[in-house]
């Protein structure tokens, strides 16, 4: 399957990637066409609609990705989000001086909002 010549690998050639994508499209068109030719045995009325599974699969994945992108805005934080919080609090201000005690807690605040708006 893999062309293991000195440095050239299967997908280094953009033409092969294009071929792969095109064959996927062809397979999809064929599968969609089979729905019209073959009679699927169905248990639910929606299943009988031509291309039901094809469309459902496609739409489901697009909706999944679009919603996941929205989810990112809500839940994504910097990679060290939890560590930073731990560090800021585990630094147990041995000095009662309020200036020093407050300062490590500060980075946590702005980082949250930054992370949320990052996307």
């Amino acid at each position, binding site marked *: 399957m*893999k062309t293991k010549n000195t440095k050239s*690998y*299967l*997908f280094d050639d953009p033409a092969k990637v294009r071929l792969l*994508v095109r064959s*996927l*499209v062809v*397979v*999809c068109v064929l*599968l*969609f066409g*089979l*729905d019209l030719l*073959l009679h*699927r*045995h*169905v*248990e*639910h009325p929606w*299943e009988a609609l031509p*291309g039901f*599974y*094809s*469309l*459902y*699969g*496609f*739409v*489901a*994945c*697009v909706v*999944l*990705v*679009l*919603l*996941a*992108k929205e*989810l*990112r805005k*809500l*839940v*994504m*934080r*910097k*990679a*060290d*989000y*939890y*560590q930073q*919080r*731990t560090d800021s*609090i585990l630094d*147990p*201000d041995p000095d*009662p001086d309020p200036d020093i*005690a407050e300062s490590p807690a500060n980075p946590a605040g702005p980082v949250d909002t930054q*992370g949320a708006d990052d996307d």
Partner: protein
Amino acid sequence: MMIELTPALPLLLGGLLVAVCRGRLRALVMLLAPLLGGLLLGSLEPGSEQTMQLLGFELVPVRVDRLSLLFGYLFHLAAFIGVIYALHVKDPLQDVAALIYAGSAVGAVFAGDLITLFVFWELLAISSSFLIFARGGQLALSSGLRYLFMQVGSGVLLLAGVIIFARAPGSSGYSFDYIGLDAPGGWLIFLAFGIKSAFPLLHTWLTDAYPEATPSGTVFLSAFTTKVAIYALARGFAGTELLIYIGAIMACFPIFYAVIENDLRRVLAYSLINQLGFMVVGIGVGTELAVNGAVAHAFNDVLFKGLLMMSMGAVLQVTGEIRGSELGGLYKKMPKTAMLCMVGAASISAFPLFSGFVSKSMVVAAVLDEGYQLVWLALLFAAAGVFHHAGIKIPFFAFFHHDSRYVASAHEPPTNMLLAMALAALLCIGIGCFPQLLYGLLPYPMQYSPYDMSHVLAQTQLLAFSALAFTWLKLSGIYPDEMKSVNLDADWFYRGFLYERWNALVVVVHKRSQLLWQGLCQLFSLVLRKLKSNNYVQAVSVSFYTTGTMILWLLSMLALTLILYYL
């Protein structure tokens, strides 16, 4: 003979023995323990049980039926594959933890009474946590502690529920059969099982800790804990309608997280919950076909999820990296691992001729049979989504995508790892092509053939168009890039919110007590200064402070205590 005590004995003894073995002997013990245990299972008769008296309790440490036997075989198989995968690891702690962990899983599924179940339930929790601690470092330590807390919490709920359940008038005592939510203590036991099956909001221990374990540790972890819980639900709560909706949520919500998660082993952890969702739905539906489907899917999931975890473990082992944003192009140097990974990906996505297809379709068919239309649509969505994130995303970002800086130095993992993956891949394809092999082991007899034209065509269409959607989204740049980030999940409640509140409280108390202490010190020095300003008092106080006087005072106090004691 020894199997009469518990079929877990070979694994448990092996776990103890391996602690003192090194070199070839260690490898021998590790391999023999699951092999021997698996062979001994053959001598167990379905329908038989062993009883014993302990502290006035009638215990049934071994109860053999088709359900427990299936899980027994599965766990020995998983332990065997995991042991091969971990042969190159020279860490006695992990060896011991892995075998005892596997042994507790076997013990739990053969437990005929709730007390034995509880003992193995807790042993599962403790032994497995060492597979996380063994990774080393602060991340693994704190993640492992959070994991252990939730697991032991599940055990405490179980114990409380069991006591209420068994003490209730008219109860069947401690025997572990159908429980149901209406039984006294039923909800507590349900929650205990729910924590270990990663119900929504109770799932965070899984996605938090599994990706922090060692490469081989995660392989063991993904096999046992959740499947013991699925077994327990199947025995105790089959046909509980609530499970259908819980399962549908479990099948759907993790896939959103899986799409945006960067740590590829965490993606697999989310997809593990997604697969558990299918099993939970099957148990909730409760018909023979549905329970068979749930159990068969548990069997297959151990194999294909294990295979995927092994392939990602191999990537982590070789490159030291597991973040999708940093990986890519590894197919050039790890073609065998990539191929094996894709077999796992095809199996979890339920491609025809791969194992996931023959079990997932049973659950989906059973759901439709019973008329749960919305749940059916949710499961279809989850089935398309799992292909998207586990089937395509995992192999794509690890092995293809753009070339990463690891391509130059990467190489295939050690032979034993490849061998373990090959064995799992073979089983995935074997079960996919010859499903009757698995169907023959299922708890209920059934007439079901997954390979009819309608099924195959429908599933192939669903998957092909999911792939098309991925390709289109990727090429058009809509697909979200992998980013170095952490995604807040329900565990933010205790890792973020509660943690901050607690620490704020500690800081306040700390400051208050400091103020109080300072006040006391000032008061004391003030008094002392007053006293010192008076010469007479100073003379007294100097004589007061001599060592001799202190000893005298101490002695008199001791004497007083002595006298008071005898009075």
